[in-house]
């Protein structure tokens, strides 16, 4: 499964998902009213040190956050230009800290564990007909569909280039949508053939094994 999880045995990995999530929520609330740059910078350094739990790989993967860094630098300049440099500095430190901590939780928690931890929160959805089984199935479908859709788009683009010699760009989005939706219909049919989202478990008509002809 594609995931941001970094396998490891650190102490932070060993804390279970529930407490980690709760701790993250608590810290976010605590950090929010901070308005002194010193405290914000301290929190940021602590987060940076905590991050060592995921080792070099963790710091390296932080590079994926580059767009956020640009955004934060932009934000700081914006604050400086409008004469609120100090509050901008606090904001940037605070945001960095929160992002680091949240990312740390993500890097050290398996997706399955995260899902299990969230199960109590999701249970009420049962009442509107969304069972945890359906959620799991939907997640699997999304992860499965994503590469299929990219493949479809690439094929379509290649076919267009072969016939015109030009890059396709947005003009292929409509045929792509129709193609993708057809795929969805086929998938629905195949899912129904395998018992649908609810499976065969609770088909009373099927008790006692398969009737023989």
């Amino acid at each position: 499964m594609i995931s941001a999880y970094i396998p490891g045995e650190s102490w932070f990995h060993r804390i279970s998902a529930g407490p980690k999530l709760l701790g993250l929520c608590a810290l976010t609330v605590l950090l929010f009213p901070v308005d002194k740059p010193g405290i914000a910078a301290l929190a940021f350094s602590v987060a940076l040190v905590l991050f060592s739990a995921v080792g070099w790989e963790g710091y390296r993967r932080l590079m994926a956050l580059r767009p956020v860094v640009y955004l934060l630098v932009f934000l700081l300049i914006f604050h400086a230009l409008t004469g609120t440099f100090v509050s901008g500095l606090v904001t940037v430190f605070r945001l960095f800290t929160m992002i680091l901590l949240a990312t740390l939780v993500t890097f050290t928690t398996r997706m399955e564990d995260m899902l299990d931890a969230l199960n109590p929160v999701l249970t009420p959805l049962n009442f509107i007909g969304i069972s945890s089984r359906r959620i799991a199935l939907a997640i699997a479908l999304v992860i499965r569909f994503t590469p299929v859709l990219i493949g479809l788009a690439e094929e379509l683009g290649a076919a267009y280039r072969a016939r015109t010699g030009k890059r396709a760009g947005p003009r292929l989005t409509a045929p792509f949508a129709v193609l993708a939706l057809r795929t969805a219909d086929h998938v629905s049919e195949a899912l129904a053939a395998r018992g649908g989202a609810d499976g065969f478990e609770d088909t009373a008509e099927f008790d006692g094994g398969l009737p023989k002809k």
Partner: protein
Amino acid sequence: MSNDRTLVYVSLYAALIAALGLFPLFHIPFLGGVPITAQTLGVMLAGVMLGPMRGAFAVVLFLFLVAIGAPLLAGGRGGLGVFAGPSAGFLIGWPVGAFVAGALMRGMRRRSVIVSAAISAAIGGIGVVYLFGIPGLVVLADLSFGQAALGSLVYIPGDLIKVALTAVIAESVARGLPGALVSRA
């Protein structure tokens, strides 16, 4: 629409939002350091094509996957960190935007598909999303309302292109595969 088909369609649109992040449909270079993603096109489409509830569910499903650690946001970002970033308000606005777009699409069922899709996508996908995103910037980035609104302007041209694309796609699906325009079915 059967339950299974709903499930598959909702998942398909969530995957579409993910695919749009990994595979940019159009390349607009960095503007002021902010990458412009095609993902809000997926949000508009989810609402316009699936209708309010299913559209919002598709977006929530996508965000849920991102939250539990799938790196599906543009640029390969994922995890809880993105909801702590300054643009978290926009992300929270996505499902609401999809819902509003779907509701408008349904409400305008007497009008032509292309026109109502454009209006729905513009109001849901731009109006509502910014309605959440700008206050988000105000709170999270400690900006004034005017600053936040000004900073968000860079996204508008890209968003208008996405509105146009949404309308064209909805129109061609309505002609080529009418059953798939669930919001009107």
